[in-house]
């Protein structure tokens, strides 16, 4: 008897990743980041999603900065977003969505790096497995118009499609 195991494919949808924080099914959202910190130890996170995250959560840059100093430019679990919309430490048995940093580039001025996106995607799968995350939201990695400058269909989608399954939802703004 043969058993066929079919790998499920990552999902794609239209929207804004931050709106998924209100979706009770969301286990985590990912913010695309670079590897730079300033002389105060704060992450350089002014553009794109990271810029919005910096404005939403005043401790985002310090948490990301600490993660970068301690672990380097790798995927990091920065905490969770509580019911009041604050970024706090991840709690055991919490239903709040986690916030995960996802490196796509080293220097904030440079374009995103496909190899780094691939590495980050693999690290994200590992974290999702360890934490049993069933719905992880992220944008089109490295494809920001003025930031990442990669092409989704040609440069990035083929990489992620090989790594992600249907637990991962790629959200693109119209």
């Amino acid at each position, binding site marked *: 008897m043969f058993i066929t195991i079919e790998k499920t494919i990552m999902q794609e949808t239209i929207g804004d990743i931050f709106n998924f924080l209100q979706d009770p099914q969301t286990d985590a959202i990912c913010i695309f980041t670079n590897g730079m910190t300033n002389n105060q130890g704060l992450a350089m996170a002014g553009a794109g999603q990271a810029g919005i995250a910096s404005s939403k959560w005043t401790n985002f840059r310090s948490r990301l900065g600490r993660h970068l100093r301690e672990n380097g430019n790798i995927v990091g679990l920065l905490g969770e977003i509580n019911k*009041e919309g604050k970024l706090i430490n991840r709690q055991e048995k919490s239903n709040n969505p986690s916030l995960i940093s996802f490196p796509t580039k080293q220097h904030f001025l440079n374009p995103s790096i496909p190899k780094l996106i691939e590495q980050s995607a693999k690290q994200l799968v590992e974290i999702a497995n360890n934490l049993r995350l069933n719905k992880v939201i992220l944008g089109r990695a490295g494809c920001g118009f003025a930031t990442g400058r990669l092409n989704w269909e040609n440069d990035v989608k083929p990489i992620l499609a090989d790594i992600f399954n249907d637990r991962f939802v790629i959200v693109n703004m119209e």
Partner: protein
Amino acid sequence: MYNIVSGAGLSCVAKYLDKYNTKLNEVVIQGGFAGDSVVPEQYRLAKFAGKETCPTFNLNADIPAAKLVIDTKQIHTKRFVSKNVCHGVIYDQEMHERIRPFRHNNKGLDMLVDGMEFYLNQKNRGKAFHDPLAACVAIDPTIVEFREVEIYREKGEWGARLAQSTNTFISVALDRERFEQILIGTN
């Protein structure tokens, strides 16, 4: 999708949205006001102590346009570089001395230094530097600390209330050193 910086009334932004029925990624607006319920105590300017609303020139310049821009879903992220922060940024002789050595970094800065030299010779108390601050925020929003809010109008004045998931942010504090770095063009 594009970004816009506005240093005046919002008529042009409103017309743009109406005429092209398009979406904008981000609009940085010089204007608005955040009062005591939004601004942490350590960041409050004495002149605004106890206030929740205030008239602000650019939003009052075209009120229907301001309301349209505030309410529209066509703009993903709105950042207000507001009076409660702008009024703490004065380009005075001291700041001029810090900026002047970098004047040859680019032509714009060279013109700015020339212009401010002329201005400070006439008015030595300095110049409120609202619009350049908004422009620098458009380059790097982290020079300002923001709070997520909803903007409202009451009795002819503007205010802000803390809110979630509005993607509308108002300034509460400035990283002065980083602002000047952006202004002179060093990353």
